[in-house]
């Protein structure tokens, strides 16, 4: 009996492996689902694009190993646009001719530049974390999917955190907003002013010019302002300069709340010990203690099949890439499930608008996308660097939605008339 049972087990294992291999090879043979990633691989966004591209390649490979999406493999087409709107449009037009209808520009100026064409062509633009904040208004921007928080939602959540840490009232509280004097940095100001009037806190605005190397004047003024909290809209090395200025001016690091664009490399450059107490508003769960990251490590990196440097897996931008494309792949799956094959932009839109309480493999706060709300909720959370790791300070927050949507509607209305 024993040899027969052993033989049967071997046969069953072989059959399972065979089916897995067959489904994988079927996924390779079937028509692919193409994602056009026109990214800035050479200029302003290079502080995030390598990590995000690596994450998306890993996730696509893992998905394809499991048979793709309904048997169709994912194909990523990555091209450089150097953060130049014209090159972004060229990339869009080229990939459109190649049959791509799902695009991602990961750049605010390029996303804004291609948006009218995408709308007119009825294609799909993934626009998470960049681009026009009012694009979450699905009633106006029907083809644009900025799933996840906008800068407007994020700043509102930051203010909510300050409110929570001041016994639930912001009356008499001083909040300094330090920002790079550029559209990215200026974006939250309207929401901040509205919230200052609503909640009664004193708002101080402290701009510094690009490229952000010289912030001494801003920080001298912040010291004079004596804020209770400092919210910073800065990128990459600008945080390093800010941390130096804070120390020089004797301002405690725990007052600093950064926008989500602060990663582990910035912490290394600031100095892990020096950065202790620093906070950031984050859109995604960081670190490797996330099932999807563990699976990628086990299935790809431990087997030498990773799509880049293993060290980048510790970077929050890696998780950001996984989160954005977990949403996109899930939307594609729902699109095929609801509309069948062949997939097209119209079905993809339905797929996105069918997302309900989807947590992007545990990386986002659960998002529900509707025809009206293409952002899906816009929740963020605050986490603090404790000298060695990020420690969440709050649960996922989605505050002042009425204020945010008021600004969204006002802004999107102007797009209708543009």
């Amino acid at each position: 009996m024993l040899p027969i049972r052993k033989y049967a087990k071997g046969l069953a294992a072989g059959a399972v492996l065979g089916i897995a291999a067959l489904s994988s090879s079927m996924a390779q043979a079937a028509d692919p689902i193409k994602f056009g990633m026109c990214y800035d691989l050479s200029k302003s966004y290079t502080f995030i694009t390598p990590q995000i591209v690596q994450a998306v390649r890993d996730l696509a490979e893992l998905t394809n190993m499991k048979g793709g999406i309904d048997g169709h493999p994912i194909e990523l087409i990555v091209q450089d646009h150097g953060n130049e709107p014209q090159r972004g449009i060229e990339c869009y037009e080229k990939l459109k001719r190649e049959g791509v209808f799902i695009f991602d520009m990961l750049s605010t100026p390029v996303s804004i530049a291609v948006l009218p064409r995408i709308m007119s062509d009825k294609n799909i633009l993934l626009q998470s974390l960049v681009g026009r904040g009012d694009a979450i208004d699905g009633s106006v921007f029907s083809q644009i999917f900025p799933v996840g928080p906008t800068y407007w939602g994020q700043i509102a959540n930051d203010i909510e955190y300050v409110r929570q840490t001041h016994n639930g009232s912001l009356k008499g509280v001083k909040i300094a907003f330090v920002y790079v004097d550029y559209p990215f940095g200026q974006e939250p100001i309207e929401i901040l002013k509205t919230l200052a009037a609503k909640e009664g806190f004193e708002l101080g605005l402290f701009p510094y010019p690009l490229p952000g190397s010289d912030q001494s004047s801003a920080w001298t003024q912040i010291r004079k302002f004596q804020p209770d909290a400092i919210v910073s809209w800065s990128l990459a090395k600008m945080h390093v300069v800010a941390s130096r200025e804070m120390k020089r001016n004797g301002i405690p690091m725990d007052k600093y709340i950064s926008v989500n664009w602060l990663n582990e490399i910035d912490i290394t450059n600031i100095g892990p010990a020096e950065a202790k107490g620093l906070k950031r508003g984050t859109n995604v769960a960081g670190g490797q203690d996330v099932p999807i990251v563990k699976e990628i490590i086990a299935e790809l990196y431990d087997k030498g099949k990773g799509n880049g440097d293993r060290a980048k897996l510790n970077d929050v931008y890696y998780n950001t890439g996984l989160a954005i494309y977990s949403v996109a792949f899930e939307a594609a799956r729902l699109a095929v499930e609801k509309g069948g094959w062949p997939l097209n932009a119209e079905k993809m839109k339905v797929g996105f608008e069918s997302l309900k309480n989807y947590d992007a493999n545990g990386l986002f706060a659960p998002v529900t996308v509707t025809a009206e709300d293409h952002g899906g909720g816009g929740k963020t959370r605050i986490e603090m660097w404790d000298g060695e790791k990020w420690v969440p300070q709050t649960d996922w927050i989605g505050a002042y939605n009425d204020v945010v949507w008021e600004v969204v509607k006002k802004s999107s209305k102007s797009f209708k008339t543009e």
Partner: protein
Amino acid sequence: MDWIFLAELSVNGALTGLLYSLFAIGLVLVYKSSSVPNLAQGALTMLGAYVVLAFSIQLGVPLWLAIPVAIVIMFFVGLGIEKVALRRLAGRPIVMILMMTLGLDIFIRGSTLAVWGGTSRPMELGVSYDPFFAGPLLLSRINMVGAAVSVALFVAFIFFFRSRLGIRLRAISDDYMASWSVGISVERGVGLSWALASVVAVITGVIWGEIQSVDQSLSLLLLKGLTVAVLGGLDSILGAVLAGILLGIVENVGSAYLDPIVGGGSRDLLVAIVLILTVMVRPHGLFGRHDIERV
């Protein structure tokens, strides 16, 4: 009026301005010999900082040794650029040389991105960022270090231009043809000025790298550095130093009072106004030679 606040803004502005002077000195060195603003000086500054980090981080050489090694390497890089790229342009229109420096800028930025990527890296000189008070004024230690280096370089170049070699460079700067006719090797002189500008680029890259970390954005120092050099007079090292101080004070103090009124953005506006007024009213700058004309 809060006079202490005003004084602190002025002193810190002057110190920051001297950091831009450090950059501008490199521009002046090339201009003195080639009569062309070197648009690749920002990229050279970034390259110098990357070379230092390549030795200190990738090869494990101590920073105090990596800096002089990088200086020597960049000295020869400067010589090489002149020999390979610029010598064959002798006698061509100035605009062609200008375009060559622009091409070099793009080439260096692209190459460094390919080799070292876009991730920023720390330059750890070990300068303390603890508060430092001079009386009631809170000053920046790294800015003081940078300002001291800038002044030291200025003094060193004053002596250099009084040496035999320096006088040759001044002669080349005064008149190419006359220098040739008396047997001065103009090519070597121009090469030396590029080499010295590359050395200055390393020093600038190290100081600014400590302040902001090392990445592609170091090359953007060109814009402010060029403004300082134009204000001071493109061929005057003294002008570069004094213009740095002046511009630093104007933008630091001006923006502190104007930003709250205009809602931000006044700092760049002030720099632009200074640049435009300089070109309109005094095209040769504060200390430049009068024979510099607008083209």
